[in-house]
């Protein structure tokens, strides 16, 4: 156990850069200037939080008269656990199999499950940090609005801590199975990408298909639904009982089956965790040893082939652009966390609308289209921007270079030229996301061109701003000392700050649009005002980025 503690200590320090952070503020007084910046970021969260709390209260008020308010808890739990599962899969693969510390750990007299235990705990802590902002508001709101007893608040902490264990253990087991297979193959990178994608899409597909199945149409069922306080909870969570157990434990507290449900949740979590330890003993080293081996055919290059392949005459900006494309697309962790996200979000959206053709999403979209045509344009533009800009490509563009950043520092290409090449790459990924999302909304959901086209124009115009600002955030303090590619993009604080900023800006724009609409301004005028604002922001942000790069780049020492 002592060894596990030692491993865990190092892993926690590395994952959260605790000692660096301590040094950052304790020893370097000048870094205190970043505290107001952190305050600003938190400030950007306020509009998002207000909108979120309003949404939770609205859902509660709708469910309460039907006696189904506990469904809110299950919904929150399901969303949180699904997020843990999807994010966890890539995270687990990266931490278990792609950390460079494995090269140091494997030759040591360390048992495989010790490594797994330590890394799993770090991921668990990270996942908790990720889902707490999402789950705590509905849990607290539910407690306040339903005047929950003391037992609700007492059960909240253990339930919260247990929530990510089950989905993360399933992710880890799947990841270990996948990586065992990958290690048998010669095309390892390709198999990792395809395998991970398959598992993620399968999870979404099952979730949506199973949710759609099951009867709910008969009169008796409807009557029963309203008679039982837990009906909605059971419907939402019927395919994933742990979500129901968590909700019941909270909702019932010490009453009736509350403790039993908490026991069930804890029991299954412990069982799966133990299963993970057992499996890791057998297959972890088989999956990880030799993973970095690359089997390459060594075939001599001839003069003629060299003449064909030695391309010349490319402008340096173009050369850097292609370097960015290749490095991003060929590093599985960058591809899965960056570019693939722009396909996953629209794919999930599409599955949700196709899986439920008569109700839910389509009805909602048609309703808002009918209520206010501008609302659907703005909502679509928001969706396009979330898909295109919130994938971490721009906000990790400098960090992704890692230890190879020295090359960018010594090559004779102006900072502006280098940043421009990176901007083109990040913007292209944004456009890809906007295009895919546009196609899904147009073809999959069936929104009319007259709604989609202006939304696309707005998103394309605004995404320059979001891309440039994300790059500024990353350039300000690039994370270059990572040992695991996942850290450069997923655990990079710059990516999180950029996402908060993007969401905050989108929420602020949303509030502005609502305000303008409430002033009875014509839809075209509101749209043109928002378009002008986006163009102005984009027009100012790109020159600012280039100017910032000229000032910041020389100061980065490697």
């Amino acid at each position, binding site marked *: 156990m002592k060894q596990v503690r030692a491993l865990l200590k190092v892993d926690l320090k590395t994952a959260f850069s605790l000692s660096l952070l301590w040094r950052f503020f304790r020893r370097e007084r000048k870094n205190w200037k970043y505290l107001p910046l952190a305050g600003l970021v938190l400030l950007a969260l306020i509009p998002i939080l207000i909108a979120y709390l309003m949404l939770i209260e609205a859902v509660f008020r709708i469910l309460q008269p039907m006696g189904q308010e506990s469904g809110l808890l299950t919904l929150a739990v399901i969303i949180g656990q699904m997020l843990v599962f999807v994010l966890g899969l890539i995270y687990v693969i990266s931490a278990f199999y792609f950390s460079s510390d494995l090269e140091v750990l494997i030759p040591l007299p360390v048992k495989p499950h010790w490594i797994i235990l330590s890394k799993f705990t770090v991921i668990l802590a990270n996942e908790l940090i990720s889902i707490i902002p999402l789950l705590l508001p509905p849990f607290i709101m539910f407690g306040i609005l339903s005047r929950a007893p003391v037992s609700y608040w007492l059960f909240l902490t253990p339930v919260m801590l247990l929530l990510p264990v089950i989905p993360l253990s399933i992710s880890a087991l799947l990841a270990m199975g996948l990586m065992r297979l990958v290690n048998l193959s010669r095309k390892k990178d390709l198999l990792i990408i395809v395998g991970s994608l398959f598992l993620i899409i399968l999870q979404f597909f099952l979730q949506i298909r199973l949710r759609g199945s099951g009867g709910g149409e008969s009169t008796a069922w409807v009557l029963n639904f309203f008679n039982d306080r837990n009906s909605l909870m059971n419907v939402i969570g019927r395919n994933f009982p742990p979500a129901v157990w968590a909700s019941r434990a909270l909702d019932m507290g010490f009453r009736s089956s509350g403790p039993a449900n908490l026991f069930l949740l804890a029991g299954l979590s412990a069982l799966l965790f133990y299963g993970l330890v057992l499996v890791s003993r057998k297959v972890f080293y088989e999956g990880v040893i030799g993973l970095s081996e690359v089997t390459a055919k*060594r075939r001599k290059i001839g003069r003629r082939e*060299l*003449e064909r392949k*030695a391309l010349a005459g490319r402008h340096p900006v173009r050369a*850097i652009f292609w370097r960015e494309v290749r490095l991003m697309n060929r590093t599985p962790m960058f591809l899965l966390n960056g570019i693939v996200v722009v396909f996953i979000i629209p794919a999930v959206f599409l599955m949700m609308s196709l899986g439920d053709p008569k109700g839910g999403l389509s009805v909602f979209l048609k309703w808002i289209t009918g209520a206010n045509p501008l609302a659907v344009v703005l909502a679509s533009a928001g969706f396009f921007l979330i898909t295109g800009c919130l994938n971490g490509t721009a906000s990790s563009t400098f960090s992704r270079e890692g230890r190879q950043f020295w*090359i960018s520092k010594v*090559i004779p290409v102006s900072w502006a030229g280098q940043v421009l090449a990176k901007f083109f790459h990040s913007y292209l990924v944004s456009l890809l996301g906007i295009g895919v999302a546009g196609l899904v909304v147009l073809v999959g959901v069936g929104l009319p061109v007259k709604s989609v086209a202006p939304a696309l124009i707005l998103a394309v115009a605004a995404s320059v701003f979001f891309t440039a600002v994300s790059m500024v955030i990353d350039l300000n303090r690039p994370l270059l000392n990572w040992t695991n590619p996942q850290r450069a993009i997923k655990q990079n604080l710059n990516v999180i700050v950029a996402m908060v900023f993007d969401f905050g800006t989108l929420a602020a724009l949303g509030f502005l649009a609502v305000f303008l609409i409430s002033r009875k301004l014509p839809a075209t005028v509101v749209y043109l005002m928002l378009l002008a604002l986006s163009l102005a922001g984009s027009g100012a942000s790109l020159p600012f980025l280039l100017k910032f790069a000229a000032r910041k780049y020389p100061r980065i020492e490697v």
Partner: protein
Amino acid sequence: MIEISGVSKSFNRGEVKAVDGLDLTVPSGEIFGFLGPNGAGKTTTIKLIVGLLKPDKGTILINGLDNQTDSLKCKAMTTYVPDNPDVYERLTGLEYLNFIGDIYGVGKSERVARISRWLETLEMEAAVKNSIKSYSHGMRQKIVLMAAFLPQAETIVLDEPLVGLDPRAAHSLKEEMREHCRRGGTIFFSTHIMEVAERLCDRLAIIHRGRLVACGTMDDLKARAGEFESLETIFLELTET
């Protein structure tokens, strides 16, 4: 030509003085060896020359241009080999060389001729199409060296270039370094291998605790050191703690 005047660099808010008031001139056409014990300030000096670090004090001129104010022009005249061959491992060797060729504007015919010659010299013809990820440490070192020599920049700065190279490749590299200086170029390199420094370098410098403790030709150093005969004994004497 490299001119270093009064350069100092410290880390940890001045707690660690890595380079302390360094003055050094390396004229064109010279192979200059830079020696010193671990942590003496060799890599810091090299990083200061190529612009990876910014000096706290002093100036560094490359062919008369300040590497801080005229950084782009200086970089166009300089290539660098780091002490650890960390390069884009998801690119193939040829893609990396093409990238460097594009950045330094090396034309097609020169590019093909130089790459072809280097591939043969360093026996990399069979590996150049593979991903750098599949390379051994020595092969990575070879690809970084090829990239440094590809543009035929006037000044080539190398940090421990012989580490990881097999004897044949090391021999070829030394020949190429000599050839580069014959064409009027400058080579500034650090090494721990005394024999190589003694035989290959036109002039040498020894740095210890950030300060230059000796600089000159091998004969100068021997004359100054008196009874010591080899560079190794001079080095040991000058860097004694």
